[in-house]
């Protein structure tokens, strides 16, 4: 790297030291890939434009003090943590030329626009690889770069439904319910990071670049493969079944003393059922011999759930969970999102980090769910303000003179 332009010098080595990523995309599915790479040491340069703002800057709450503004947007600051940010109006040929110069310095390009969008701007795969032949390119979009639905626009929450997740969530006697947010996007983010890392691994061995066509839909279907195979093998159509499980019984979410404070618990074997009975104080109803087998418990599962709820309603979540865990049983409080920020286990793992941000004051960032012992992730910087690193990147990295930079700025190339 020729410059760190705003990046703190690394104190310990990181997995992707020396790797540069240029990212063109918005919302969640593309940019969060870059965030994982950035928190492991990559220099990720997020390219955007004020002429077509990221919806996470313009549309999606929350905004600081509920006042809409591109540098007041909590979502953008979170989803672009650790990156440098530049603005280019890619409708202008000179902006496209600068983007390609940036790509010549990069190892990876991530883009998440609808299929064909970048090609129309002169930034298709061929143009990118001419700029840098051993480039790893990740194109992530709704349904992939090819096929009859490649051009169809979509949001993650609805793509989640198309993949079949919602059919499997809810009460059998009611409509399916939503999986919060664009669930499938985060699956595609995970596979996107994996794809880029695997392609870099091959490049280290062979020197070859790679073009990765990631359909967020196909990535999501990986998490449904058993249900899909079940249909193919047996002709059945898997559907939602509230909190029931095919092995564990009882297996459910039960009320505690306090309003809307729930406990999840499950019993996975006849031996565990014996310990569960004891934890409840071995009541008369639980001693019936037919409940000693999974089949017997399943035959009377509704009744069992009612009985268990009678017990749980008399206790706090903490009492229930500690009583069951003390006997080696599976139980956990149903934590609200606010409670996660005070969760002692997540705190121990340092999942939550805080970073200063010019428009928001301070924002919370999230560490990855895997801890590396030698080269830990460093989620330390919030997402950039609009155009924050224009000078550092275009002058510092690409070597534009002050006069060249000013002329391009005056022509709106950096809009």
């Amino acid at each position, binding site marked *: 790297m020729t410059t760190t332009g705003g990046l703190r010098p690394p104190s310990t*080595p990181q997995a992707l*030291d020396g790797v540069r990523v240029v990212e063109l995309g918005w919302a969640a599915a593309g940019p*969060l890939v870059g965030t994982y790479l950035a928190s492991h040491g990559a220099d990720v340069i997020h390219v955007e434009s004020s002429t077509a703002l990221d919806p996470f800057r*313009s*549309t*999606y*709450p*929350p*905004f600081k003090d509920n006042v809409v503004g591109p540098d007041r947007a*909590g979502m953008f600051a*979170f989803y672009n943590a650790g990156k440098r940010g530049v603005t280019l109006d890619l409708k202008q040929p000179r902006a496209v030329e600068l983007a390609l110069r940036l790509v010549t310095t990069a190892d990876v390009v991530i883009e998440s626009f609808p299929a064909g969008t970048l090609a129309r701007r002169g930034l298709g795969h061929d143009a990118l690889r001419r700029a840098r032949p051993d480039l790893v390119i990740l194109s992530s979009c709704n349904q*992939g770069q090819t*096929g009859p639905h*490649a051009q169809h*626009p979509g949001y993650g929450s*609805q793509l989640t*439904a*198309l993949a079949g997740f*919602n*059919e499997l*969530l809810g009460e059998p006697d009611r*409509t*399916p*319910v*939503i999986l*919060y947010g664009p*669930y499938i996007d985060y699956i595609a983010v*995970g596979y996107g*990071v*994996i*794809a880029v890392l695997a392609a870099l*691994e*091959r490049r280290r061995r062979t020197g070859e670049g*790679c073009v990765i*066509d990631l359909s967020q839909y196909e990535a999501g279907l*990986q998490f449904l493969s*058993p249900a899909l195979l079940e*249909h*193919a093998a047996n002709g059945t*159509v*898997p559907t939602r079944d509230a909190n029931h499980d095919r092995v564990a019984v009882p297996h459910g*979410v039960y009320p505690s003393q306090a309003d809307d404070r729930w406990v*999840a618990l499950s019993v996975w074997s006849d031996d565990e059922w014996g310990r569960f009975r004891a934890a409840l104080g071995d009541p008369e109803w639980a001693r019936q011999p037919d409940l000693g087998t999974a089949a017997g418990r399943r035959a009377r599962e509704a009744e069992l759930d009612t009985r268990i709820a009678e017990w749980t309603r008399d206790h706090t979540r903490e009492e229930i969970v500690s009583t069951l865990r003390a006997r080696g049983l599976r139980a*956990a409080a149903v934590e*609200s*999102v606010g409670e*996660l920020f005070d969760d*002692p*286990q997540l705190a*121990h*793992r340092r999942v939550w980090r805080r970073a200063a941000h010019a428009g*928001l004051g301070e924002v919370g960032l*999230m*560490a990855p*769910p*895997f*801890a590396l*012992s*030698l*080269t830990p992730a460093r989620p330390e910087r919030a997402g950039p303000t609009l155009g924050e690193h224009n000078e550092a990147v275009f002058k510092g990295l690409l070597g534009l003179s002050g006069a060249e930079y000013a002329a391009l700025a005056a022509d709106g190339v950096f809009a």
Partner: protein
Amino acid sequence: MTTLLDGLRVIEVAGDDVWGASAVAHAARILADLGADVIKVEPPTGDPVRAVPPFLHERAGADRGLLWIALNANKRGVRLELPRERERLRALLSSADVLVQGREVVDAATAASSSPSLVVVTVTPYGLAGPLAGAPASDLEVTASSGALALAGEPDRAPVRTTLAQSPFWSGMYAAMGALFALAARAATRRGQRVDVSGQASMVTVHPPACVHWDVAKEEHRRLGAFLIGRSTVGARFRNIWECADGHVSFAIQGGPIGRHTGRMLASWMRGRDFSAPRFLAIDWDGFDNRTLTQEQVDALEGEVGAFFRTITKREFFAGVIERNMLGYPVADASDVYADPQLRARAFWQETQIDGTALPFPGGFALFDGERPRIRRGPPRLGEHDAEVFDAVTA
């Protein structure tokens, strides 16, 4: 194409329970799909996932579980009785780059002394350290501990989880990701390291907007059944799952360029069918901003849209949104997914022979230089590769 992870060897050691065994199996399956040579180590009694229903043709059997089949394609399998046969495990690990384990079969000190370049990935419900290290949990408890359970379900009933356990998939995916970051570091440092994956923390990543709302605005998002929150500056909720003539569809009244286009298209769809929706059809889409609508306004519009959707089928809805290039999809079930022309056009399905039945597996998760990683083999029978693996290791 040279396979991405050609030459990489991964040893997978099953966890003690279904959760851990599923999570490590998924992690190793991802690496196997990318070309790694994955050797799965099972106890003599077999991996606990083998016993999980449903089964192929609804006939129980150690090689017939569909969760087992889904998670273990592309691997070889050996039997080891641990700790008795730990020397054989050690020999196996000396030829390996990555160990993925569901419990600490190999601890950090052993790994560091006997194979310093080995990447050791351990997947547990809460992680290897901290107050909940070692606490047992299945998918339901892991999901409960992550906030994800509190965000799903009807407000007047208990929170619900996805009927097909999801947290092993998430945790396994992050385990594979962690392994690849550690391999990238190893290329520079020549040293392996430990990767400690938490199921709870994995599931915290599935709902970032809820965390951002709490962090920035101290707003607590809760389960709202079929409704979305977080799209309004005045706190209105928007329906996202709707009844249709033969099932359900996913759709939301939205702003922004694409949301306004969608609204216009839906209005013209209604007009083309002479459907009466006075409020919805009166919207001036050029200036439409969903963020500032009151709940009363949203409810009135959604009443009309809901009535329209009840007149069309899932299939009509899917064809209609594609034709009009508007947002929205049917709530598909497995049969709809297999029928989807997009997946067929991209050759997503890969037929694999399992016990004399050709099963259409979901193919690799992405195309690399235009090629999709293949299902090269079905899952191993218990101990199927004992001879070839141990002969090669001891040779």
